[in-house]
């Protein structure tokens, strides 16, 4: 049974530059006792997804909707107060990134772990302290830690304290946001071992947020790959790791230097996209090694290509003339030297057809027609890929085409 289900969750926020689509139509589910690892590069919206699930929203939120179902109940319908009282920390808790450095340096650890119980759930002091000490014990910390101050503890111990805090109300689901990113390898291994043990013994579910595919495989029963605010591939680890479907997943797996392999890692060209001005259609297509015409040409990009070809003299004898972008899919070309539009249209159509092997963008042309003294070029509607498949799903147009190309 699924402990958490997300359906079409959106969470956008405003900035001075424009709306950031941090979580863009995300759907997934987490089975009870399972771990879903969400893997992605920095700024891909992993942490925002966690914030959206826990309804930890900033002031400048622009859009927040969708369905979040916890144990079958849609918690999006709850008021903020009900959500805080019944869901946050009791149903779902979170280990925040860098939380171990946010412990209050002036309070004893036991008190800090117990405090939320007293403040938010009106627990008696003795009871709260007892729960805290039990929780600290469950993460393998010795008794003296309760009476220690954070600075007296090592990094690994502080991280255990933070995990104890997340576990104190015995939630069914814990979101782990880069829980080991500031720790050394050896400490990281110890913490991961603890998480494995807790998962097995307490039947905990995790959402494990990380940028590290290798580390994700330590916990993940399912893996979700995020790119530019969207889940692009998700499925059981047994499928995703050995046979990734999405070109981004493939590239990401190849970019990881592997200790026990001499195969050289390969980097992904380009720069991770901006969540404000994401690319048209498939957001990965500008960096994709196998993307083809349908993966997303906007009229502007098309016009840029024409301009580039003209500048480099590779226009095959046709003068493109000046391109005017009409909308996302249409641009109007004006003949330069007083050429008759009808002749011009014919010349263009031939040129696009002849060169479509060398310039893939030309394959996206669906219509060339005469309009107000110029020629309007309409492009194939670039489709945003949607998730395809059953247990193992990926969002790539190439998969829909059926012919999976090698990347």
């Amino acid at each position, binding site marked *: 049974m699924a402990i958490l289900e997300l359906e079409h969750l959106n969470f956008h926020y405003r900035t001075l530059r424009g709306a950031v689509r941090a979580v863009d139509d995300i759907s997934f589910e987490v089975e009870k006792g399972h771990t879903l690892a969400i893997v992605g590069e920095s700024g891909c919206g992993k942490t925002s997804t966690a914030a959206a699930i826990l309804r930890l929203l900033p002031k400048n939120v622009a859009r927040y909707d969708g369905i979040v179902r916890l144990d079958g109940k849609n918690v999006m319908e709850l008021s903020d107060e009900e959500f805080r009282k019944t869901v946050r920390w009791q149903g779902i808790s979170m280990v925040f990134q860098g939380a171990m450095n946010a412990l209050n340096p002036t309070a004893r650890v036991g008190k800090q772990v117990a405090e939320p119980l007293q403040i938010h759930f009106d627990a008696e002091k003795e009871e709260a302290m007892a729960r805290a000490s039990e929780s600290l014990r469950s993460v393998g910390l010795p008794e003296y830690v309760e009476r220690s101050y954070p600075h007296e503890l090592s990094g690994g111990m502080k991280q255990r304290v933070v995990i104890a805090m997340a576990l104190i109300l015995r939630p069914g689901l814990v979101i782990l946001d880069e829980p080991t990113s500031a720790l050394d390898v050896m400490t990281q291994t110890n913490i991961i*071992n603890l998480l494995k043990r807790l998962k097995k013994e307490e039947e905990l579910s995790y959402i494990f947020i990380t940028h590290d595919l*290798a580390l994700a*495989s330590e916990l993940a029963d399912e893996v979700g790959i995020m790119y530019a605010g969207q889940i692009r591939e998700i499925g059981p680890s047994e499928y995703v*790791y050995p046979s990734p479907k999405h070109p981004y997943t493939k590239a990401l797996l190849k970019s990881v230097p592997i200790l026990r392999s001499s195969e050289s890692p390969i980097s992904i060209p380009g720069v991770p996209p901006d969540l404000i001005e994401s690319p048209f259609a498939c957001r990965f297509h500008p960096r994709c090694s196998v993307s083809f015409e349908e993966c997303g040409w906007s009229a502007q990009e098309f016009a840029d290509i024409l301009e580039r070809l003209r500048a480099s003299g590779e226009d095959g004898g046709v003068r493109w003339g000046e391109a005017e972008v009409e909308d996302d899919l249409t641009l109007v070309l004006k003949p330069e030297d007083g050429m008759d539009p009808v002749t011009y249209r014919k010349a263009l159509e031939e040129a696009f057809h002849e060169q479509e092997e060398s310039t893939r963008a030309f394959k996206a042309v669906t219509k060339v027609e005469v309009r107000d003294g110029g020629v309007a070029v309409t492009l194939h509607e670039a489709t945003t890929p949607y998730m395809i498949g059953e247990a193992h799903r990926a969002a790539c147009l190439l998969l829909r085409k059926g012919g999976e190309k090698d990347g």
Partner: protein
Amino acid sequence: MGEPLVSLTGLTKWFEIGGGMFRRPLHVRAVDDVSLVIQRGETLALVGESGSGKTTLGRTILRLLEPTDGEIQFAGKIVTHLKDKDLKWLRRKAQMIPQDPYSSLNPTYPVNKALEEPLVIHGLGNRQERWERILTALDSVHLTPPEFFAHKYPHMLSGGQRQRVVVARAMILDPEFIVADEPVSMLDASVKVSILRILKEIQENLGVGFLHITHDLATAHHFAERIGIMYAGKLVEMGPHESLLTEPLHPYTQALIEAIPDPDPENRFRERPALPGEPPSLVNPPAGCRFHPRCPIAREGLCDVEEPLLRELRPGHFVACHLAE
């Protein structure tokens, strides 16, 4: 092989802390008696956990810190205790690539000004020549077209692009030696490798010697010829990367390798062996072998008494362990 580029003999760097009017100062033994050589055109990766002294070692070699003891030779010259004004030639020949691309560029300087500064300091070229060198340097780190990037401010660049600018700045003086201190640890997986490739190109094409400081053994494995493992201020093992990874001699190296996962869905079904405890205090390190309190094979009466010396057990493969064979 000729004269080594960098040669350290018994290099030691202690920091003094907490000294007061009536208190004896304590010493943090950040780097303790490290000897190694780096050849021209090779990359030595120095791997260790935080606090192992690897960063201090890198900064001491560059003479950003003055060593407490030992000797540093750079291209045959002893630079151990040179004063600032006598260090200018070293500052031209040896460069640093720091860890954080977000803080290693002055935010108020555009790229061309950041790259020009080393040239201005060393009085190299006129305006036009400097401009050409800047463009060449940007080109060599694949920031093309260079004219486009030359006028950008750091905040307009992505982390990967910034780190390329930092590499270009280190390259612009045609150095012979570069200390790269975790050059990619802050970058995303997809751009990490491209930076490492550039460093590799520089090493191979220009014959620059690299000291690559990292905590990531996998990166070291793919981008260095030799790997040195540091633990608590000591160099515990050093050797060719293949041999060190396939046949680690020091129990710490073995544990380190064990602790690093590869992407494998089977990982989740078993716990990974990990060492108990924490690295020791550098103020008051354990007697004998500094690793012995955590060592699974430590022998009483030997490891806790006698400090192991670095021994060459395989060709070019050194280890500081009494029990390694």
